[in-house]
């Protein structure tokens, strides 16, 4: 198999000088795909994603984007390389308007970003309606749309979402998943950490089940959903 577009290859590491949280963990995603990281609480799902994004030290193993080794780059430099990241919490500028949030997303761009903003508004029509409102006044689901929209403003080559549906109602969750599929259809590879394992695996092209910082199961979303052990351990039967 050829090298995936973005891969965190056999990563071992932890926060600061603390103990290792990840052990030989591998996560990869290809264009047009949605890759989902699932697993029980404390399995290191978010940590794995942060490792890929450079927010903690990867002691062994490497992170490669489009064949280039980016293991030593800071998160900021990775954004410039084309990685878009949506943190789980505090992922919008609450006191800025929706439009200003998007502008700040495009801060590193020196060219005209009007078109990208129009695309984001096409993707999330509600944001266009509320573009002059402070982002902090929006509902949970709308805030997540702002957060994803902000990350899309750099025209990233890969989009990473850390629990995009945390704390939103099931209806809003379905809608968010629909949007995420739409983003993936534009060709942007999506790497996502999800608490709602079943729904996430349903839309996933590739699934990673992590347990205690190790790859426990890997496969397509359908395979994992069909896997007896995965079902029993993580999906509640």
């Amino acid at each position, binding site marked *: 198999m050829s090298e995936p577009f973005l891969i965190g290859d056999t990563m071992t590491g932890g926060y600061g000088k603390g103990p290792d949280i990840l052990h030989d963990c591998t996560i990869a995603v290809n264009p047009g795909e949605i890759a989902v990281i699932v697993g029980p609480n404390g399995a290191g799902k978010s940590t794995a994603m942060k490792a890929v994004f450079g927010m903690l030290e990867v002691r062994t193993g490497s992170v490669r984007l489009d064949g280039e080794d980016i293991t030593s780059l800071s*998160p900021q430099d990775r954004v*410039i390389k084309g990685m878009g990241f949506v943190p789980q919490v505090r992922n919008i*500028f*609450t006191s*800025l308007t929706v439009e*200003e949030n998007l502008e*700040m*997303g495009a801060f590193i761009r020196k060219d005209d970003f009007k078109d990208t903003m129009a695309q984001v508004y096409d993707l999330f029509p509600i944001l266009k309606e509320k573009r002059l409102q402070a982002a902090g006044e929006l509902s949970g689901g709308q805030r997540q749309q702002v957060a994803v929209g902000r990350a899309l403003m750099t025209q990233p080559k890969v989009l990473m979402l850390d629990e995009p549906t945390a704390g939103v109602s099931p209806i809003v969750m379905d809608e968010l998943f629909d949007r995420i599929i739409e983003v993936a259809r534009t060709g942007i590879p999506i790497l996502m950490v999800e608490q709602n394992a079943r729904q996430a695996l349903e839309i996933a092209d590739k699934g990673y089940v992590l347990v205690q910082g190790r790859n426990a199961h890997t496969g397509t979303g359908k395979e994992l959903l069909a896997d007896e052990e995965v079902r029993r351990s993580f999906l509640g039967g």
Partner: protein
Amino acid sequence: MTDFLNALVALTNFVIVPGMAYGAQLALGALGVTLIYGILRFSNFAHGDTMAFGAMATIFITWTFQAWGISFGPLPTAILALPFAIMITALVLLGTDRVVYRFYRRQKSDPVILVIVSMGVMFIMNGIVRFMIGVGDIRFSDGERFIISARDFKAATGLKEGLAIKTTQGITIVTAIIVVAILFWFLNKTRTGKSMRAFSDNEDLALLSGINPERVVMVTWIIVGALATVAGTLYGLDKSFKPFVYLQLLLPIFAAAIVGGLGNPLGAIVGGFIIAFAEVTITYPLKKVLGYLLPESLEPDGLVQLLSTDYKFAVSFVILLIVLLVKPTGIFKGQSV
């Protein structure tokens, strides 16, 4: 009717006009404090002495201009000196940041450490200012003294009470409006201004978005230098320049910033006027105004001065305490202290 007008004029003359001017000065000072709090995330105790430094720079340049025979017609020469003084103060602040604050920023020090560091800066700046210009009272206002003098007002209206508006009071209010308008335009309309607000709102996300923190900090110090110089100069023009007074001004300025909501520029302005009017109203003897309004039988015997002017700082203290107890985030939902 004339009684009512006389009461109104007396109130305007002794409370409203001085309150507006003082409020504008406090608002400009509080804006500087609130910007530092929002972006560098600490309470800058050196701000009062930064204002003193800025005013001192203005005075030296004013004296130089006067020696050269340059004047600004009816307006104080200090206004001409202001842009140069702003440049000097901004450079000094950038230097202080480079030598002192940046070290602690790199260490990711707690805000409380930075507060204490800023107190050190405060003492040094205070010493420098006293050393350079002396501790005495300095009046550096020249040009026309009044926009309307009490005598002219009485002659024009035939009222018993006079209304005087000093040039410095007029200049204070006009300058404050201009400065605040520019500041809000900058923060809300320019890319750099928006990035400053974004950085103040959510530092981590700002970094992720590629906003350069050192640049944001630099621009902030320059703006704070400008605000402090303008506020210090206006206060010095209106009253007189005395280094120690600026140290005392720190309390009403912080009270204003906290009442409005720390980190919120609009709050700083509203807070400034609240503190100023509270101070002026409570320390002004209302006997004269009430004397016009009330029938003779009810006329008060005493001065109806709620608090002697010697205690004016107590007013800021009390307001500060009430706000911290009841609504610690201030009126405009700033960050809590």
